[in-house]
């Protein structure tokens, strides 16, 4: 999968542009705050129809204007398709090959990208919510229908919490929402566990082979409700439902006192172990980075395996976060792939490539070919 052309109008601070990216490596060089990440954001939006930086359309449209437009010509295997995205203050519209889609979700998954941003380096040490997002996004990229599974779960969770907050609470209604929570929750967890099952061997390989680590790394799905269930051998939906429901019942009045749902995928976490010891507390700075890089690499390899197409990779100033050894390892992994990559950097010398590349300088929102 690759972008044949990318064009945007009125998008953030970028001057209107149309570029023909290189099928392999595309380097965007510039000082901070010149617009490099905005270009990655335009690509990310074409794939996910939402930004990784904001939920507000206004921020995506150049100041003082009504609407921004991003057009991407995508090659998928032997097919080509055109994705056109219009961002207005209150809505987003997508045309696929000139046809306006009735629902945004119809255009999801046509383009697959994986983003690696500097914040990702803190994935293992940071908040559980960031690890859940990583996991959910990885599931979603390989299975677009996951979005509706997740949104049904979140809608149910919100309503169950409302029931718990209500002082004239109806016990039967709470029971109904507990069952619904468990029903949708088991689907969410089932999808996450299935993804982890596929990701695990790829992650182990990447961690050892790409980053030359000597330790055995493993990923575990952590759930407070699952002390009786082996999550590594993915259990069936019914086992998951029963375990969650039993955990809710075992909490007794705790949920009523705290007025929120305490059991379910919204509280679960991902844990990485190095030789059986939790990496979060014990791994070195360098090991953390290798783990995160290995997770992202595994995600790419999984998608390649699943769809026969490599996703487009967006690397936002990642090299500045890596020491020179890991930076070298990263680039030799990238060179071993065959997909399209967009890399932003403040310093060209971080980019360890000598062929198959196009470069642009980004200065005050303007793109000019470098070299």
């Amino acid at each position, binding site marked *: 999968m690759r972008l044949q052309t990318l064009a945007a109008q009125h998008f953030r601070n970028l001057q209107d542009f149309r570029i023909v990216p290189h099928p392999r490596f595309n380097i965007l060089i510039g000082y901070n705050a010149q617009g490099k990440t905005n270009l990655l954001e335009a690509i990310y939006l074409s794939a996910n129809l939402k930004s990784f930086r904001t939920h507000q359309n206004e921020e995506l449209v150049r100041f003082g204007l009504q609407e921004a437009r991003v057009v991407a010509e995508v090659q998928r295997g032997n097919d080509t398709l055109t994705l056109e995205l219009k961002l207005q203050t209150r809505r987003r519209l997508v045309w696929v090959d000139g046809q306006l889609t*009735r*629902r945004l*979700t*119809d255009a999801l998954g046509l383009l697959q990208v994986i983003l690696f941003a500097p914040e990702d380096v803190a994935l293992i040490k940071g908040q559980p919510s960031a690890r859940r997002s990583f996991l959910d996004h990885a599931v979603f990229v390989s299975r*677009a*229908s996951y979005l*509706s599974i997740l949104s*049904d779960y979140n*809608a*149910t969770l*919100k*309503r*169950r919490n*409302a*029931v718990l907050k*209500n002082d*004239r609470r*109806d016990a*039967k*209604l709470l*029971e*109904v*929402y507990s*069952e*619904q929570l468990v029903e949708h929750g088991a689907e969410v967890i089932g999808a996450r566990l299935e993804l982890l099952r596929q990701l695990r061997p790829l992650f182990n390989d990447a961690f050892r082979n790409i980053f030359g680590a000597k330790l055995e790394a493993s990923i575990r799905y952590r759930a407070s409700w699952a002390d009786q269930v082996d999550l590594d051998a993915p259990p069936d939906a019914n086992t998951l439902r029963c375990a969650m429901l039993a955990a809710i019942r075992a909490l007794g009045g705790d949920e009523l006192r705290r007025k929120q749902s305490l059991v379910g995928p919204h509280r679960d976490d991902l844990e990485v172990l190095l030789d059986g010891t939790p990496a979060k507390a014990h791994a070195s700075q360098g090991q953390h980075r290798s783990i995160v890089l290995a997770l992202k690499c595994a995600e790419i390899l999984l998608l390649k395996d699943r769809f026969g197409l490599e996703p487009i990779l967006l690397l936002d100033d990642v090299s500045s976060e890596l020491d020179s050894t890991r930076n070298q390892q990263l680039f030799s992994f990238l060179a071993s792939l065959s997909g399209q990559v967009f890399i932003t950097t403040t310093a060209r010398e971080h980019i360890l490539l000598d062929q198959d590349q196009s470069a642009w300088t980004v200065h005050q929102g303007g793109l000019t070919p470098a070299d």
Partner: protein
Amino acid sequence: MSNQTDPIAELINLLAVLPGVGRKTATRFVYFILKQDAEYVKDLAAALVELKEQVGFCAHCCDLTRESPCRICGDERRDHQTICVVQSPQDVLAIEATGEFRGLYHVLHGILSPLEGKGPDDIKLAELLARLSNGVEEVIVATNPSVEGEATALYIKKLLVPLGVKVSRIASGLPMGSHLEFADKVTLGRSIADRRVL
């Protein structure tokens, strides 16, 4: 002047609260009405008053009707052992238009909505329970296939099953005459999950 309101502004305010009508449309309505002859305006006013005076809940199904029991509940030829539960009177019209259903209805006038603070006492559930003594065998829950529609259906199931009533749920899936390739993913996924044996 202080206790007198401008009749134009007054009617705009009254019409602007109607669903789907904003101030602009309300203003168009007012000027349209002003242009009509006195006869039409009197008929319109009388119809509005009559609507409120004569239409009320059916004592059985809670549908809105002029007479109680309503036309459907009073029809001896219909199947009085099957009740289809719906959210609103419009849903009765929609199902009646199919001609597929010969049982009775029950209109909840809402749905269990924790976010809006609507609980079991805020919809016509007690009225549904009261009807079950008359030999009702099956209740079909035809609430919308949304999170709250499903929860309401399950709630009704929990209420009725212990009373020995069969509770069923309308199927959801693909519209007839449509093409699979154009169906949205959720509907298509669900129609595969809820497939039936041929």
